[in-house]
């Protein structure tokens, strides 16, 4: 498609596509944020509806939540570095930092699953009470997002390794990093609303 055109026109065409995609992705993030807003509102309404079961203070471990917060914040940092490297065309460096992000994300997911396992091990699950329903669904939805982020990250790394860093790949990586930062922000709210408030 590029052969027929003067490169300035192609450049303008691509820049417009970048601009559009980026904008559209922001709008998508807003819709996703609204889904989370519903889940947060539901959690806020139901957090005291324990139906005779345990409440947050009994079940949550502040240590695990803190570890997870640190893991995710660090991964936000590493994906930032990775994107800078990608924008400068440094393929190897980018892959290393993206790889590190992937590991941190996986670790986060592991800790989260461990936490769920612990709660269920004590005999409670999302059927126990409205409080636990909303807890599992809110935190679980975030976890599902992290999982899809990891999948996206893995697949993109594979294609970067195979095809190198062309323009459309860098565009995809920018979206991915936006998505990752977005999940980080949502987690900050989860950390505050779910975990910290349980111990107030």
């Amino acid at each position, binding site marked *: 498609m590029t052969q027929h055109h003067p490169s300035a026109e192609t450049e303008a065409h691509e820049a417009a596509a970048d601009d559009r995609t980026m904008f559209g992705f922001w709008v998508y993030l807003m819709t996703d944020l609204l889904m989370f807003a*519903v889940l947060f509102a539901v959690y806020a309404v139901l957090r005291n509806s324990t139906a005779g079961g345990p409440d947050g203070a009994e079940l949550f471990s502040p240590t695990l939540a803190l570890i997870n917060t640190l893991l995710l914040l660090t991964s936000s940092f590493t994906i930032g570095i990775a994107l800078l490297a990608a924008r400068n065309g440094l393929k190897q460096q980018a892959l290393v930092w993206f790889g590190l992000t992937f590991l941190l994300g996986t670790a986060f997911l592991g800790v989260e699953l461990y936490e769920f396992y612990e709660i269920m091990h004590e005999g409670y699950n999302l059927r126990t009470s409205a409080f636990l329903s909303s807890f599992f669904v809110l935190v679980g939805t975030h976890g599902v997002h992290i999982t899809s982020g990891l999948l996206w990250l893995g697949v993109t790394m594979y294609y970067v390794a195979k095809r190198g860093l062309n323009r459309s790949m860098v565009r995809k990586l920018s979206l991915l990093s936006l998505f990752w930062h977005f999940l980080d922000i949502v987690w900050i709210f989860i950390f505050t609303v779910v975990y910290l408030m349980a111990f107030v």
Partner: protein
Amino acid sequence: MKEFLIGNLTGKSLPHEWHTILGTVTFVLSLIAVVAFLTYTKRWKWLWTEWLTSVDPKKIGIMYFLVAAFMLVRGGIDVIMIWLQQALASGSDGYLSAQHFQEIFTAHGNIMVFFVAMGLIFGLINFIVPLQIGARDLASPFMNTLGFWLYVAGAVMINMFFIFGGEYAATGWLAVAPLSGKEFSPGVGVDYMIWSLQISGVGTTLGAINFIMTILKMRAPGMSLLKMPLFTWGSLCSMVMAVSVFPLLTATLFLLFFDRYLGTHFFTTSGGGNPMMYTNLIWMWGHPEVYILMLPSFGVFSEIVSTFSRKPIAFYKSNVVGMIGISVVALLVWLHHFFTMGAGAEVNSAFGVATMIIAIPTTVLLFSWIATMYKGKIQFTTPMLWFLGFVAIFALGGISGVLLAIPPVDFQLHNSLFLVAHFHSTVIGGVLFGIFAGLNYWFPKIAGFRLNERIGRYAVWTWIVGFFVAFTPLYILGLMGATRRLDKYDDGNGWQGFYTMALVGGLIICVAVALQVVQIIASYMQKRRLIDESGDPWNGRTLEWSVPSPAPSYNFAVIPKVTTRDAFYEMKLRGLPKPHYKAIHMPHDTPAGIYISVFAFLVGFGFVWNIIWLYVLSLLAIIIILINKTFKEDSEYTIPAEVVEKMETVRAEKMKAFIRTPDYSKEDMGLKEFVSTVFSWAWGLVGGKR
């Protein structure tokens, strides 16, 4: 093993009642008919490459119209069944069981809102918005076809209960909890509803994101926001509202689904759940939804009033501010749907006042239209008649709405037929008439010939008469104390006459719809005479009229430069510039949207019947298709400048050749001529003369 393979499906799930058997037979027969037709005429490949996989928003728009028209008939049959039952069931059981009656009105609501109104609105936006803003395609053509096919998957899903399961939700169109929970609705009906709305709702969100991107980022050079045509403005407001509330619907339906499938306690009466929260959440989506449908319609009216009054729209900026005002306030009034739930006097009055405030921006729009008509040379074409019908009906709906916004009054009228009559006045008048007006107005751009005016007028008047005959008795019944959704009532109430009148009105509306179909067929028969050779049959003002009819696949051979509002009208005054052709980039067609939607449907079906392997595999398939699609390079092709020029010339030549043998037979045919033409054609067919 059996449970693993087919989940909860059993022999009992197969059709065994008269209505499910009828539905299934109809479904299978029409499927066979379509397959036979396509095979006989060897059209499979044509259908697949030209239509189904197309990313052209104009073709997608037409496909939206077709599906929505089909669903309009489907939902219309429901209405007649409802009113027939109510006309019969005075002191008796009527011909429907209570359960069946409830399923019908639930399906009626879901179908009319999600698959008729939404489909028609999206069809219109797909077709017209890119043409109005001078764009060749959409920001993400793939997202658009995906959105459309998800809508189709939802439409199929809502009809699936005929074949598997035999029951639809009997909960009312919003599936209010705890009635929709597993405890009170143990069957698959509510699951079908959840997944139908879920799948099509995701399609709506995708479509809305795409149109926001398109309208904000792809306008022709020079078209600033305040030079945009008002239909585009209405669509933009509507789409912004859609992305603001459809995620709420998705989240809420997921929570309801978790309650039913995983046994969580969000909206249950036990385990600390809160059913009132469901009512809040669903109406936070539900109320704005009405305005999502209405705002593009308002935009249509602005275009039509301006064109047929031969004047630019009056108070353009107020009109825009009015639409934005409606969008903002509409997000803040949801609680008026349940004043009776007991939020307290303060909360109720706040929402009551907010509701009444909406009347102000709406009136601003009305004044803008009146001022446009003032001293204009008004032509009473069919689109204009639809507009006038809208004014009459919508005024009634608006006034009864302001009445209902007063909490003490609402306590009397809540859930009565008065309310039913109110929202049908607003939605039929405001949404449906707007779309019909728009279809009449833009039909030349869609098909290349305009619609028959004479039969069009009959259709408008029949619709208006039918509407008042059907809904006036409902207003009266509501004031007499009839609640909505009654499958039978006491003979001593004296309601039967009114219900019968409503049924008669419904039948008149059926005649009106039939007339609309006749209008299209008659226009097709006379298309040589009705042909739109200029591309500008109404002396239009906006850019869509600057391109030939029907619009070419790339919309604009040359992207126009916009300097004023009513850009095309100005161009006509100043003389059109000589075209200087450049290469055009167009997106490739893709079947990925269809594939994903098929699997999305299977995911839903798997969850409805708890077939684990089906939904797991289908989800995986969706992920794989998405990855493949995303990382496929080069999804555009280029039409070189010379080819564009050649295509444009060939097209003009063809058009000339076509017009050289015009058919000036009289005027638009009337019903008599239509019937006699059809009969003589059929006679010829039987006699083998053709």
